[in-house]
């Protein structure tokens, strides 16, 4: 009888542990598509460095939206994203260093889905002059069915504008 009680106790502890984990696992770093999602972002970043805009845009779903690329064009569809980076890669070479990738799966929440967070530094080299601009960046991407459906860039457009010769005058009182 003592052994039975011990077995029941251990089994209850085990069950409780799984139930608790099931409730807490609304967000996880380890999920089935983590490697695939990571690979998509790696491909996107590699293509940017190669100036291969077609491959960059091929990682986006047809109805994907890209936010935060700066200027008045804050929200870009796939065609506008392609045009943006065609213009950019015509004049600039992009070199990514210190890049980090973090796949995260969110369940049972408003932001449910498989996300990839990235951080890095983009060294943008003006092809005409060879001048370098260092741009630390962060991106948040939602991946669905092997494509990026949503992407937001966080970086300082002002950094680029100033390096391109725009002068900033603070207002006088």
């Amino acid at each position: 009888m003592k052994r039975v009680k011990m077995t029941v106790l251990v089994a209850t502890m085990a069950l409780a542990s799984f139930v608790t984990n099931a409730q807490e696992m609304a967000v996880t770093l380890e999920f089935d598509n983590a490697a695939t999602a990571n690979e998509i972002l790696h491909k996107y970043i590699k293509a940017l460095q190669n100036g291969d805009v077609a491959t960059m845009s091929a990682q986006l779903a047809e109805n994907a939206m890209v936010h935060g690329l700066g200027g008045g064009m804050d929200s870009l569809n796939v065609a506008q994203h392609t045009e943006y980076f065609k213009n950019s890669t015509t004049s600039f070479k992009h070199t990514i260093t210190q890049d980090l990738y973090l796949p995260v799966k969110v369940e049972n929440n408003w932001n449910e889905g498989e996300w990839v967070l990235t951080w890095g530094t983009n060294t943008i080299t003006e092809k005409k002059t060879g001048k370098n601009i260092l741009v630390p960046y962060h991106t948040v991407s939602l991946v669905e069915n092997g494509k990026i459906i949503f992407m937001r860039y966080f970086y300082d457009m002002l950094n680029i504008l100033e390096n391109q010769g725009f002068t900033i005058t603070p207002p006088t009182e």
Partner: protein
Amino acid sequence: MKKILLLALAIVLFTACNQKERYTQNSPEIDTFKSVIKSYNEQNWEGMTVHYADTAKTFNNSSDVGLSIAEMVDYHKQSLANLADRGFLDKDQEYEMVVTDKGDTWVNFWGDWEGTLKANGKKIKIPIHLTGQFKDGKIVRTSGHWDNAPMVLALQEIEANNNFPPEDNRPIVNGMYQSFSTGDVPAVLAAMDDNIVWNEAESNSLADGNPYKGPDAVLKGVFTRLGENWENFRLADIKLHEMADDKVLATLRYHGKYIKTGNSIDAQAAHLWTLRNGKVIGFQQYVDTKQLAEAESK
């Protein structure tokens, strides 16, 4: 044998229970980061810095220039100079903590920062990402990523308007061009009188609805069609000239690509604005219509 099995199961359970959680949205470190954000909003610098290690560095949109704690506080104080108020909005704040493979603890934060400019009351909203590394419960390093351009361009607009003499209509027109450049069409329309009369240049394809009467007619007949037919349409080299009779002349150039043909333009243009009581009541466009027609038809 049963004892051995039970012992093995207990060991597995013990190990599982003590496994370090690599991702969470609830932790003391997250609470600390929330306290930092709250202190920032309240300009409580002591309340903010108490959570940082003495040797902590802050990297704002930079991977190589790190600010010390004192420099970070100065940076925040200086940024208040042009603002009536500012802070992170409570809505849609997101926090998470991640423990890396190397065992480093990072808290990530996403939120919208909003500031109100002292000079004109304009509100600027900027999405911001901050990430902070923790050691022994203290922040040892933070990195921030956001776009400073909207704020600085708004300050530039104020400075440009400061250079105009009183009773000059150019600040109003300048504000419209600034709003147009950032895609803020509602602000452009708000500067128009309800009875504005808007004329596109003769022979411009958009002149088919001349004269457009009222902001709504301008929106539907001009701005919407511009957006539908042109890619990256923008105005450049804008120079404003105050004229007699409440008129302002703008000389400028148009750039853009006509979507159907893929042809781009770099066209000379002029806009003659008429204002009354601080509102635009008339607009006449002059532009190189030959270039526009060629871009649209080839």
